[in-house]
């Protein structure tokens, strides 16, 4: 399970980083979203990965999942969600104000996207 978890997180982070470095606002926003998913997964795993553990320490005292990372990741998800919503609106505002969706404000002539 660790290998699968690590690979998923890694792929998400790598794709997110690649997209975040693109030149247009939409891929940047999607990239940041993917990165935040990767970070949330990572944060979730910091308490150690357990299967079939009880949520908090039970009577049996057996294996239990660390509740703190779950609380942390919940907070991070809520904040990340709000930030994503904000950056989407902001990207649209930039498109409207600057007249281009390029992060540097360049009006790049790319005919295939400007057909309409």
């Amino acid at each position: 399970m660790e290998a699968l978890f690590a690979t998923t997180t890694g792929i998400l982070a790598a794709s997110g980083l690649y997209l975040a470095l693109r030149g247009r606002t939409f891929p940047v926003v999607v990239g940041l979203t993917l990165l935040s998913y990767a970070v949330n997964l990572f944060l979730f795993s910091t308490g150690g990965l357990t299967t079939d553990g009880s949520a908090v320490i039970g009577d049996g005292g057996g294996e239990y999942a660390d509740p703190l990372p779950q609380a942390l990741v919940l907070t991070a998800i809520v904040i990340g969600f709000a930030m994503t919503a904000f950056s989407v609106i902001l990207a649209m505002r930039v498109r409207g104000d600057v007249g281009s969706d390029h992060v540097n404000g360049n009006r790049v002539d790319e005919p295939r996207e400007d057909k309409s």
Partner: protein
Amino acid sequence: MQHLIILPVLLPLLTGVALLIHRGGALTLRRTANVLSTIALVVVGILLVAESTDDTIRYYALGDWQPPFGIVLVLDRLSALMVMITSLLALGSLLYACAGDDEQGSNFHGLFQLQLMGINGAFLTGDLFNLFVFFEVLLIASYALLMHGGGKARTHAGFHYVALNLLGSMLFLIALGILYGTMGTLNMADMSAVVPTLDTADLGLVKAGALLLLIVFGLKAAMLPLYFWLPRAYAAAPAPVAALFAIMTKVGIYSIIRVYTLIFGEQAGPLANLAQPWIWWLGLATLALGAVGVLSARDMRTQVAYLILVSVGTLLAGTGMHNEAALSALLYYLIHTTLVSGGLFLLVDAIAQQRGKAGARIVQSRTLTQPATLGLLFFAGAIAMAGLPPLSGAFGKALLLQAATTAQQYWLWPILLGSGLASLIALSRTGSTIFWRASGEKTGITLGPLRVTGTLMLIGCAPLMVAFAGPITAFTQATAAQLLDRDAYVESIIARDDTGGDA
């Protein structure tokens, strides 16, 4: 007054929410509410500083969950001082904003209070994850405030600022994850107690986490490779917001000081002082490049933004010097630079308004309507910022230069004094272009009483800080001593379990 510690967070929160709910209310009412709340915050700040002077470290356990299990707000000299500076700066920029800048967009007053809540929370919290949460609170308010009033330059600079800070927040979370995974706690005092007992196998991971934190705080503080967002964002922001943002870089500096003296300080075993060499060299480089930026700026706003970078470099170098005298000196310099650079942002905006089309650009243009008032203020602000005697900048720098050890002197003295010279040259060129090489008729726009009060309040701190240099340095020295006394901090948070906190 045990609940005093949480007031700097609660008061702006309640006022902010009330202002957002009644955002359609009369403008005078909203302004009055905001100003009253900020004045109350100044009073709370002063009370907190007074309370902290007896050298006990107090904490406020939220929900009475005792540390290290619950979230605590910690009041020591440093946090009390930072809260007080924040409230003073906020009052100055708010008075200025009430003269008309707040009408340019919606919800200025509510967002302003929420911003204060985030900043105060970041200064007071004793929990690393809670620090992240307060960072987000102050950031999301700052995103909206930065774009207050709208316009091409602002939205554009705003997008860069938001994207960078989102990345910064993610790095922060990764660092927190690593640290929690290895140490099993996020309470700063508890982390500090755990660090020396770490397993050797975990050392590499903890070190990675600790240095990732440095990147995050460096981004907030505008440390060398991470400062490129700052001049543009600050130059584009409305003046009162830019003035308030003068404290934002100090949030980064504060976090660096807190984390790398408390958690990874002297007593951290194999990880002791791991970030200090980085901070020292990067601080010096920031200082040098900031000075180049000041010289090259073609716009007064950008110039002040670069002056902030120079001060950030100075503060970082002081942190990297890592001795008690340097820490005390840099705290004095921090009070000075925060208030005066905030005042300069306001002043530059006031000057730009009276110059008609030329605005804040450093070019020949019309004569100002009030050359004497503005000129005197600019003169005082420039002297303080460049670090010439007799104002507070010189005092802070002299203390810092004195604190350097012989090996550090070779680097610090030429770079710090050279950057002072560069600021002096640049500011005198700006001043002579604006005030002396001006011709043509006046625009007739004058500075209202609110704007004068706001600007005067912040720039006036420079002579006041010299007049009261004795008590202030006594306070900063005690603060530095308290900061380096890690055991006292840990004991007052962790060991008081049975007697309970001030809940």
